[in-house]
């Protein structure tokens, strides 16, 4: 298409979009799309197996009964569910104040270097192999202070894993609180601690709660540290100073057993664990998104 009188603009040979360049673009686009499809299909396959093999194992007894010895029909994983909840709760009691403190320190005080150092250490703890955390808690608590495997030791190991998750997620949530709110509080003469406790934290409440619950859920999926600390238990036990059952431990013990019924229960327990974590992950996303928009 040429306009009379206009100078013809000639694309130099080296800049032409040749068939070869077009083909390279097409091939690479298809390859990248295939990589995405592969990643997504892994999710479908793994979640699919967990749902299909896990669902048949779920019934009332699964949630209310304790594990039966092999050969006895029925039974469930209630001690493991309760143990995971109890250890998660104790872990939260330890991890939330520390994580919240670190988050407020990093977000509200912006103490420069110090805030950066705390954040960096949190990231390093998050990157520690969880089995090393288990060895640490064993040496710290199980060996001498308590003298036996115990639920509270498991809880401490989970707390170490939760602290960086709480600290970093809450810091992010606190940053979403509009600075106008803080300034308004300060302008009214409120001291900083009141602004933080009565304006910033309540504003971010939904996000903080979800972050904490998500941290519990993430920690609840940990197995290796619990093997070295809580050990597991086939009986109901609420005493944190004695060995305690947990869902991931139950999954492991059932999985490596030679019995089909126990394999089915391992899949069922996995389904319960994954479902709980997925629900919490989705709700965290919804909360942080509605706040940021």
């Amino acid at each position, binding site marked *: 298409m040429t306009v009379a009188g206009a100078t013809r603009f000639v*694309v130099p040979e080296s*800049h032409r*979009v040749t068939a070869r360049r*077009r083909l390279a*673009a097409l091939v*690479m686009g298809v390859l*990248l799309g*295939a*990589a*995405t499809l*592969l990643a997504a299909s892994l*999710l479908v396959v*793994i979640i699919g*197996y967990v749902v299909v*093999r896990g669902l048949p194992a779920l019934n009332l007894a699964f949630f209310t009964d304790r594990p039966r010895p092999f050969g006895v029909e029925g039974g469930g994983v209630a001690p493991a569910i309760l143990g995971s909840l109890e250890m998660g709760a104790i872990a939260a009691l330890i991890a939330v*104040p520390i994580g919240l*403190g*670190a988050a407020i*320190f990093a977000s*509200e*005080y912006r103490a420069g270097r110090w805030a950066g150092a*705390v*954040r*960096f*250490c949190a990231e*390093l*703890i998050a990157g520690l*192999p969880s*089995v*090393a*955390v288990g*060895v*640490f808690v064993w*040496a710290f608590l199980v060996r001498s202070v308590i003298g036996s495997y115990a639920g509270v030791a498991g809880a401490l190991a989970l707390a*170490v894993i939760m*602290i*960086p998750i709480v600290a*970093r997620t809450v*810091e*992010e949530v606190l940053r979403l609180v509009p600075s106008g709110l803080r300034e308004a509080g300060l302008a009214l003469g409120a*001291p*900083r*601690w009141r602004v*933080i*406790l009565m304006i910033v934290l309540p504003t971010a409440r939904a996000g903080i709660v979800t972050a904490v619950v998500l941290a519990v859920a993430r920690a609840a*999926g*940990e*197995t*290796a540290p619990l*093997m070295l600390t809580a050990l597991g238990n086939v009986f109901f036990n609420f005493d944190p100073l004695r060995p305690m059952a947990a869902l*991931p431990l139950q*999954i*492991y013990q059932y*999985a490596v057993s030679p019995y089909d019924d126990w394999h089915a229960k391992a*899949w069922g327990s*996995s389904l319960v664990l*994954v479902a709980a*974590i*997925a629900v919490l*992950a989705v709700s965290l996303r919804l909360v942080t998104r509605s706040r940021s928009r």
Partner: protein
Amino acid sequence: MTSRADRVFAWSVGALALLVPLTLLGIALLLLVDAWPSVARYGLSFLVTTEWDPVKLVFGAGGYVFGTLVTTAIAILLAAPVAIGASVFLVEYAPRLVRGPLAFLIEVLAYIPSIVYGLWGFFVLVPFMRTTVEPALQGTLGGVPLLGALFSGPVVGLDLLTGGLVLAIMILPIILAIAREVVSAVPSAQREGMLALGATRWETVSRAVLPYARAGIVGAAVLGVARAFGETMAVTMVVGNSSTDISPSLFTPGYTLASAIANQFTEADSELYFSAIVEIALVLLLVAIVVNAAARVLIRRTGAAREGMIL
């Protein structure tokens, strides 16, 4: 009055925050103390000698180091190209409508507990490897000189190759999530300039976007390596845990550092045995700290936005 209350509050928040570095320090120190008998006795040879005999009280973790390096290498070689490719696709190619949900779905994979990957690997992947993949590999590549040695020996399914594969699946969403952040953080002027010059989409990606994001993408992959290195349960369930021999075959039912801890921790009946196992934990800890620190520095250099996400 208020200034004093303010100071008290600030100090208590600071004290709580201080517990974070103290925890890290405490873990490192306690492990060092408990590992000391083994560290003092074996020195660096602990990492290279392969004889691990609790009965004779001889401990060399070389076989475990080898298993960890092999599985980690398999994992990163398989996972990194797929994860980086998918992250580029999600940011540069995918329609806006599917981009968010698809990225989120894949990131959900990162939340799945490792024991579930282990369960899936044990009951689904291992039989599949034993009956289908490994015989096929042996049949096609087994005869090739040199390369064939990788696929020699009996086919069991519980081996280093399967361990590496499960690790690859586990670290894929982690690399993907971070690489996606890094690629999103590339300024759009970078792309627009290239497109205005008449470049195709792939040329824009390969010459304007990827070079800009290189440090961060490498950081994402390094973070994946760190995760694979210390991962315990999923690997323990599929890696075999029976041979500490250093053999070229990927079909060796090997051991990794982390699976050695998981399998033997409760069996350690002498001080030196226990100390040797704690030294393995110490090695994992030190490697994790160094590798994670390097990865964070690389990722931060590209100015990726979401530092708050802990994966």
